């Protein structure tokens, strides 16, 4: 079988692409390629992965210009004339090679009040939530997010506005806004509105296009725009 000509980013924010020749195999994924390079060609290559079966989101990288889960990206699908270019995720500081600093991504999650807060105790009964209610359906549509940052890396607004909370944080906030058990609603709406929040989204839909779990952060953000408007017109209650 032929060889793959692989170009891999080495270094930090400053650096360069390094070329490797990797034997091509059937059903090979991009993660297989990166692992092969680190194990057989250059042990100094830094990269992240964990489950390698498309559940954890750790292996997200930029492959031929597009953010993807490398464990779920078959080489056959992306290699053009046996060439692949692998770089770290965009919009995040690079620690080294293919590893990015995810702190800002999760800090924004916290800033968007992406945490659940309830008021019930063990002495209260179970919360009764109908699974087919509008609110629960909306929450369900967004809760499968595993925080892989592919959407964040695919957003041009994040690129332009460093403070922008980003699609993942806003998507999570939306699921919580629709959680009837949560008590932080007003605080959360205040946190997500503003020129670094949902109103900075320009519906370019890079996030929705790229999400590996097929979520639609664009829809969640649109929901936040409507909900913050309603909240404002009700006098912020």
């Amino acid at each position, binding site marked *: 079988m032929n060889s793959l000509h692989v170009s891999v980013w080495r270094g930090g924010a400053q650096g360069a692409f390094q070329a490797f020749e990797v034997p091509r195999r059937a059903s090979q994924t991009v993660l297989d390629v990166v692992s092969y390079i680190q194990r057989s060609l250059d042990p100094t290559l830094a990269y992240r992965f964990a489950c390698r079966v498309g559940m954890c989101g750790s292996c997200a990288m930029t492959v031929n210009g597009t953010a993807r889960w490398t464990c779920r990206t078959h080489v056959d699908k992306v290699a053009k004339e046996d060439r692949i270019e692998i770089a770290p995720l965009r919009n995040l500081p690079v620690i080294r090679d293919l590893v990015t600093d995810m702190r800002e991504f999760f800090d924004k999650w916290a800033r968007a009040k992406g945490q659940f807060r309830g008021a019930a105790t063990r002495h209260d009964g179970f919360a009764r939530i109908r699974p087919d209610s509008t609110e629960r359906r909306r929450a369900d549509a967004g809760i499968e997010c595993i925080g892989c940052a592919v959407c964040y890396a695919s957003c041009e607004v994040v690129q332009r*506005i460093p403070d922008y909370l980003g699609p993942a944080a806003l998507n999570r906030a939306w699921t919580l806004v629709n959680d009837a058990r949560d008590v932080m609603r007003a605080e959360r709406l205040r946190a997500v*509105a*503003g020129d670094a*929040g949902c109103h900075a989204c320009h519906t370019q839909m890079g996030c929705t296009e790229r999400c590996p779990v097929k979520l639609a952060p664009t829809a969640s953000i649109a929901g936040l725009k409507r909900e*913050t408007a309603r909240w*404002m*017109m009700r006098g912020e209650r």
Partner: protein
Amino acid sequence: MSARVETLLWIAQRATAGVLAVCVAVHLVTMTYAIRGGLSAEEILSRTRGSTGWLVFYALFVVAAAVHVPIGLRAALAEWFGWRGRSRDAALAAFALALGGLGMRAVLGVFS
């Protein structure tokens, strides 16, 4: 502070967008029809002068545009030209008044 302002501006922007969607649709159709075979002031003004209905329509059009245009520019100025803060907002408010003023002048000139 920002949360309230941005939310109110978003509401105003989408509301005027709805109004403008109707106004623009009507305007495009009537203009395409009206300019057939060329334009003359006589032709235009004979159709428009004294028409209260169209005066109200275009007055509404002008007001909606005077709100919608500056809000739209606001984000562009911040993101593409790095202009933020009070000076930008003051300039845009002035622009809104200018648009409204010039627009109303035009509406009165053509329709009254």
